[in-house]
């Protein structure tokens, strides 16, 4: 199944590049902007919550990389100084920033160039460095998927623990018989949850005992585990991961906030207060305002608070889900008139009405809050800390509700025609 999904997505990606470069330059009439910014993102969060990290499994970039690696064998080891999540975090923030600043949702050509750049960087890194260096240390989408997949109902795990205990060859991580072991350095007997797992199933293929499978797990159960994780260590000791979780959550709010009318008001306010008219610096300032305190708080928080940070994930994910499901559902069938010309598809059937979509958005936000609160109570029993933390969660939830309830602004950017 993995190979079929990869081939399908690889050719679909090629098509999207072609459509983006050579198709209509008007975003709503171009399948690249439509599929990438509406359908892909919506289906991604839906798949993550309903099934698992299947989008990483079917990654077209890794499919291309694997093909090239049959001819070019990487020799170098990824630099130790970069073997953490900081570079990926910087890329993730840059990605969010570029999305806002360059208005990627409105430019098919830019979107196509972004896909090409992704292909080139993934190929360059993974043909230069051994293992899945791009996936583990650089890919911003991958890290998003890793964090979100901690809520997935499936994970890759062993079938029988005794077989793993008696195993001395450890093909699942080392590889063997010309098969790859885990390239993100996860040792199946000690693997906890989905963080850093690309669902590639290389471990399953490599295991001579057929002792690896995709198993069902309870939603978000790994988030309350504070023990050592294979390939990661203790999550509360990983400031890079904790910062990523923070940015994942606040970034979700920021990404949604940038779509409402108040963003424009904040922008105008900042321009008047700071005496800066340049949009680049204003966007940088908004990002700094939202994200900089986060790093400061995480760096200076004590151990017990750090252990609570993963409990942000359900709420953070619900914010992303609420935002992406809005675009997916309200524009669900907008691709039909683009594929079938003169289809006369009724306008009111292009998407699902807001009266249906809005309750889904709020309902999911509420579920996210509940899941976050439950997770935090599982992590710590210190009452005072728990009260403070849950108040913080409630504040983020209310912020998300406020953003979701504000009038949408599609931020159309066409400037070419006037009366």
């Amino acid at each position: 199944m993995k190979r079929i999904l990869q081939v399908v997505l690889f050719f679909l990606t090629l098509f999207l590049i072609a459509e983006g470069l050579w198709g209509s330059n008007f975003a709503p009439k171009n399948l690249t902007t439509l599929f990438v910014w509406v359908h892909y993102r919506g289906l991604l969060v839906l798949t993550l919550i309903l099934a698992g990290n299947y989008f990483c499994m079917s990654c077209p970039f890794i499919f291309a990389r694997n093909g090239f690696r049959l001819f070019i064998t990487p020799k170098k080891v990824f630099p130790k100084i970069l073997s953490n999540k900081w570079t990926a975090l910087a890329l993730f923030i840059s990605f969010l920033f570029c999305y806002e600043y360059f208005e990627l949702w409105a430019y098919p050509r830019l979107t196509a160039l972004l896909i090409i750049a992704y292909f080139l960087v993934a190929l360059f890194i993974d043909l230069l460095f051994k293992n899945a260096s791009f996936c583990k240390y650089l890919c911003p989408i991958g890290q998003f998927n890793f964090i979100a997949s901690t809520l997935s109902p499936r994970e890759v795990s062993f079938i029988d623990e005794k077989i793993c205990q008696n195993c001395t060859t450890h093909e699942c991580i080392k590889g063997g018989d010309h098969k790859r072991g885990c390239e993100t350095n996860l040792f199946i007997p000690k693997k906890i949850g989905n963080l850093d797992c690309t669902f590639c199933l290389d471990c399953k293929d490599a295991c001579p005992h057929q002792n690896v499978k995709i198993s069902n797990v309870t939603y978000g159960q790994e988030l309350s585990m504070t023990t050592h994780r294979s390939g990661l260590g203790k999550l509360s000791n990983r400031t890079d991961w904790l910062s990523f979780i923070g940015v994942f959550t606040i970034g979700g709010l920021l990404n949604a906030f940038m779509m409402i009318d108040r963003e424009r008001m904040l922008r105008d306010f900042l321009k008047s207060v700071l005496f800066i008219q340049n949009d680049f610096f204003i966007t940088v300032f908004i990002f700094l305002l939202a994200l900089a305190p986060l790093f400061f708080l995480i760096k200076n928080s004590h151990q017990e608070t750090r252990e609570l940070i993963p409990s942000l994930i359900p709420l953070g994910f619900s914010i992303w889900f609420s935002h992406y499901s809005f675009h997916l559902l309200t524009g669900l069938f907008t691709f039909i008139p683009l594929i079938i010309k003169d289809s006369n598809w009724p306008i009111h059937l292009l998407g699902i009405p807001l009266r249906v979509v809005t309750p889904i958005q709020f309902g999911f936000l509420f579920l996210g809050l509940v899941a976050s609160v439950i997770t935090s109570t599982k992590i710590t029993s210190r009452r005072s800390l728990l009260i403070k933390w849950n108040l913080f969660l409630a504040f983020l939830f209310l912020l998300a509700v406020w953003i979701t309830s504000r009038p949408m602004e599609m931020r159309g950017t066409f400037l070419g025609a006037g009366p």
Partner: protein
Amino acid sequence: MKLTLKKLSVHVQSLNQKRLKAIGVLLSALIFVSFLYTRYHQGGPKEFLIENDDQIILTWQNFPKKFPIHAPLFLEFSLKNVKNESIKKAQISVEFTMNHAGMVPLMTSASFDGIKEIYQIKQSLNMHGTWIVILTISLENKPISTKTVSFTTD
């Protein structure tokens, strides 16, 4: 030793098969992209919002300075040909859209006021942002022409 050599030979064979498959996929990808390139370049460039007709002159008679949302918006315009003669009873479909993927447009049509000889559009906007209005003008025995205008809500 023999066993190792046998294993190695099996490996080389399987590697060659894999390489052949990879070359096959790469060639298929190249053919696919070439096919797409040819398809996309048939029938000229597909740039959006190129106004394809300078035989029809559109003049805005009423184009407000402020655009509130969830309130009726009235736009009025006249159409004339190059001889400065008024064009009457053209079929004009009007699409209010935004430059955002997944945007569901608002569709309406312009009605003709025979006394003032102007066309009128009435529409309530449902969202903040920069709107693009695309007028598709159909006249008997003439090719369809498009006119566009954009504005930003308050």
